[in-house]
């Protein structure tokens, strides 16, 4: 049974991969730190900082800082990354730039082998342009990791997970939101890098900033005309975002999330507020900062930061639901198994 399930998941993964025919990637090595040359903020005809373009938010920086780095928030240089990794406990992988374990090293299918090894598809490693970064984790601050959930939330998450596992093949509605092509959970806000398709495009019109993410073509049209949030009755998968400019930084505040939305492993509450800050820092780079404040879920707010880097490619259509053959295949496989 276990093998069947892993292969079903692998099949679903493969099929969903096929449903995304092309991916916006361009082949560039990491850029050196920008030289101190004269650069002036490009502006839209409206006089706002021009953030428009296609960006990659792919990164090798992990969300949580590896424990062996303690409170160290930045590496001193590229060499320090390599040297610091030597302090990593044996057997660790996939974090902090260390190589991820090959599928062959994970024969029991404990979860590492069944998701994509993106390098097999030419989507990982050096094929993806990434902003250079010396950060040790996306989550900022001395702890460098998401704080604990409130005990009652942790209990609810565990119960949900247990129910999910016991009933995971009962119906389409029992599958994770990502597999259902409703949301992958990376689109946010906060927007988080994904293993592949970590690409987004920004378009600015008068009074609005549009952000489309390649992953499930999820799009936010963020008003910057000073209007308040919409009615609290209207909960949304991507929340309800309004923006304003603070100097040259676009600040976006999001509330009114659909209660099924999960941020860093925890369902959002009706008190959740996410604040994002977009600052163009050079010709190629937008600094992206976020704070998640959800006092009904986490013991304290947390913040994160990464850079997204301009790429020359286009965004391509990720028709996730339209190509989701994996859903019917998985469910019919489960029904067939029950008859055995």
């Amino acid at each position, binding site marked *: 049974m276990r093998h069947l399930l892993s292969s079903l998941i692998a099949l679903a993964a493969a099929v969903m991969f096929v449903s995304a*025919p*092309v991916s916006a990637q361009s082949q560039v090595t990491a850029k050196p730190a920008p030289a101190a040359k004269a650069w002036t903020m490009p502006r*839209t*005809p*409206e006089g706002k900082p*021009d953030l*428009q373009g296609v960006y990659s938010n792919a990164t090798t920086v992990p969300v949580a800082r590896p424990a062996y780095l303690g409170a160290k928030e930045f590496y001193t240089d590229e060499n320090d990354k390599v040297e610091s990794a030597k302090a990593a406990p044996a057997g660790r992988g996939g974090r902090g730039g260390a190589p991820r374990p090959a599928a062959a090293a994970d024969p029991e299918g404990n979860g590492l082998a069944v998701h994509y090894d993106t390098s097999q598809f030419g989507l990982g490693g050096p094929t993806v342009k990434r902003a250079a970064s010396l950060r040790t984790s996306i989550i900022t601050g001395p702890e460098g990791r998401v704080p604990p959930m409130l005990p009652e939330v942790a209990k609810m998450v565990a119960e949900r997970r247990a129910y999910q596992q016991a009933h995971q*093949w*009962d*119906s*389409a*509605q029992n599958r994770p939101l990502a597999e*259902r*092509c*409703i*949301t992958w959970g990376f689109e946010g806000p906060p927007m988080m890098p994904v293993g592949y398709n970590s690409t987004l*495009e920004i*378009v*600015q*019109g*008068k*009074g*609005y*900033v*549009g952000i*489309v993410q390649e992953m*499930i*073509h*999820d*799009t936010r*049209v963020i*008003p910057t005309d000073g*209007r308040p949030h*919409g009615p609290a009755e*209207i909960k*949304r*998968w*991507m929340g309800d975002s309004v923006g304003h400019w603070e100097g040259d930084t676009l600040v976006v505040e999001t509330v009114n999330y659909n209660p099924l939305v999960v941020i860093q492993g925890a369902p959002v509450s009706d008190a959740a507020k996410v604040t994002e800050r977009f600052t163009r820092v050079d010709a190629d780079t937008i600094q992206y900062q976020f704070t998640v404040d959800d006092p009904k879920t986490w013991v304290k707010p947390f913040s994160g930061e990464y850079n997204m880097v301009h790429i020359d490619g*286009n*965004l*391509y*259509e990720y*028709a996730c*639901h*339209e190509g989701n053959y994996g*859903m*019917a295949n998985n*469910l*019919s496989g*489960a*029904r067939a198994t*029950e008859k055995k």
Partner: protein
Amino acid sequence: MQIQMRSRWGSWLLVGAAGAALFYLAVIPTPAQAPAYKAPKTKDGKANLNGIWQAMNEANWDIRPHAAYVGPVSVLGAAYSTPAGLGVVEGGEIPYKPEAAAKQKQNFTDRLKLDPEIKCYMGGVPRSTYMPYPFQIVQGTGTVMIVYEYAGAVRVINMGAPTKAPADSWMGWSNGHWEGDSLVVDVTSLNDQTWFDRAGNWHSDALHVIERYTPIGADALQYEATIDDPKVFTRQWKMSMPLYRRLEKNAQLLEYKCVEFAEEVLYGHLRKQPLQGKGDSK
């Protein structure tokens, strides 16, 4: 329209008074556009199409002229039957090849099983424009984004040097340019999975659409879509309709992420426990 312009030019030349012609050119706007509406401009001098727009017609039921008729699900009665519509096809008739016309009739008969709208598939072009949901134009510099509430479909129209699609897709590949106040969008690489309406009017993957969005008033655009698909139609044809601005002060695009609404119809037969009618009243 170019032909029209040329003939005007011809008549002016016949008059033979170059000075008079120059005078006319200076005071009379281009004769190509019938309504001489001058659109407000963006700061970079383009017609300002920013806004939330919606069609107000019955084209999504049937783009051809049609009387009202009963809907496909009898228990829904008058609430979900088909409203009558004058149609949006210029000339009223779609020039199907005979076998293609037969397929449309079959599509209509089997529409509950086949209509991609029921399955929450992206609407494609031009259907997304006149589905009964708003869409928003975010007019950037170098790109124009069109976001549709239905299924969260989105297009980012390239306004630079035309580019080519690497593969077919649901919303196609859009290259745009300005002709006066009109945004003209050349849409190619559309797949053959979308329809024009709920009546099963269809196209193949050879579909090529040229769209024109022309401001005709402060709160209205004229939308034209020239349809070319030699596998299905005997000639090019055109649909045309006004689009209206959503004037609510708080107008905004909401989410119609409809996957959840389509899961029972797509996967309900694969449930462990059948819903036993519960799905119809939720």
